[in-house]
């Protein structure tokens, strides 16, 4: 049987399980701090549906959009995207797809949406993402603009390392903002 496991990769190099009702949160300088409009997040956290932070000790790696081909990783200054920026362990999101037998995966895609309709981008949020070693950000705004991930050869475990960045277009909490991953296996 197939199963997904979701993790947050924190700056303490630990792997933080993201439970069934937990979610990733994009904030300003600290948890619950606002991000100014047109600016991008300064921290990424794991939180529950009660808006309580789960990553109390170390927070997730912060991958902040700077320009189409560069990011600021953990407030360490800007750098060109590509091999090593970020490394796989430097990505804030890890997705593990496991299967009892060995399968190949193809047509894997990742996108942000409004939490209701796959093809509708998040409301009043500018979103960018990438897979470790990508040289550019992808504006994966709805399933029609989804980011393609690399195919994977026969294995029982397939791991995807993702980075993301978000910016509010208007003032206010952005709840109509979710992310989704799709793949095929055989």
């Amino acid at each position, binding site marked *: 049987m*197939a199963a*997904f496991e*979701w993790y947050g990769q924190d700056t303490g190099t630990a792997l933080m399980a*993201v439970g*069934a*009702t937990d*979610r*990733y949160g994009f904030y300003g300088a600290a948890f619950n701090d606002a991000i100014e409009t047109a600016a991008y997040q300064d921290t990424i956290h794991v939180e529950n549906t009660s808006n309580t932070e789960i990553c109390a000790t170390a927070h997730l790696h912060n991958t902040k959009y700077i320009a189409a081909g560069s990011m600021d990783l953990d407030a360490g200054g800007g750098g060109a995207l590509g091999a090593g920026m970020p490394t796989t362990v430097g990505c804030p*999101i890890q*997705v593990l*797809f496991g*299967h*009892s*037998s*060995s*399968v*190949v995966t*193809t047509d894997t895609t990742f996108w942000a949406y409004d*939490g209701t309709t*796959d093809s509708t981008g998040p409301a009043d949020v500018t979103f960018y993402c990438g897979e470790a070693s990508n040289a550019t950000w992808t504006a994966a705004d709805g399933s029609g603009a989804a980011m393609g991930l690399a195919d994977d050869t*026969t294995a*029982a475990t397939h791991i995807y390392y993702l980075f993301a960045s978000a910016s509010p277009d208007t003032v206010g909490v952005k709840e109509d903002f*979710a*992310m*989704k*991953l*799709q*793949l*095929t*296996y*055989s």
Partner: protein
Amino acid sequence: MVKTKWLAALSDGTMAVEGVAPFAEVKDELSPWQKLLAYLDAHDVHITGMRVQVSKCGEATRTYNLPSFNKTPEGNHEKWVTLYPRDPASYTYRRWVTCSLTTKEERHHIEVCAHYADFAVSLFVDEDEGNESWVVVH
């Protein structure tokens, strides 16, 4: 509970069934489909038809068929001969899974596909409820 499986008619007259030896689902072995691909190579046979079966507790098994490469010795198709159906060149299978990072809700579909020279016909069957199917020509 919904259980789906693919069935593949082979050119040697046998039927490969997902989950049934030699295409059983066994932990840490190749998937049933990967076993079938290896079997096709090793025995120099090919797929001549594919279908998906859906079993739900307390309900009769439902079967969804793709167009088959299914000629009589006289060269006529056995089914719907007056439509002169074209023979697929090959078949593929895969499963789709979509998962929300927010709710972790998953959606599952099984796809079998008949490939022709310049197009393909995909049959999708919902694996969560097992009640719906779709056909896409692409």
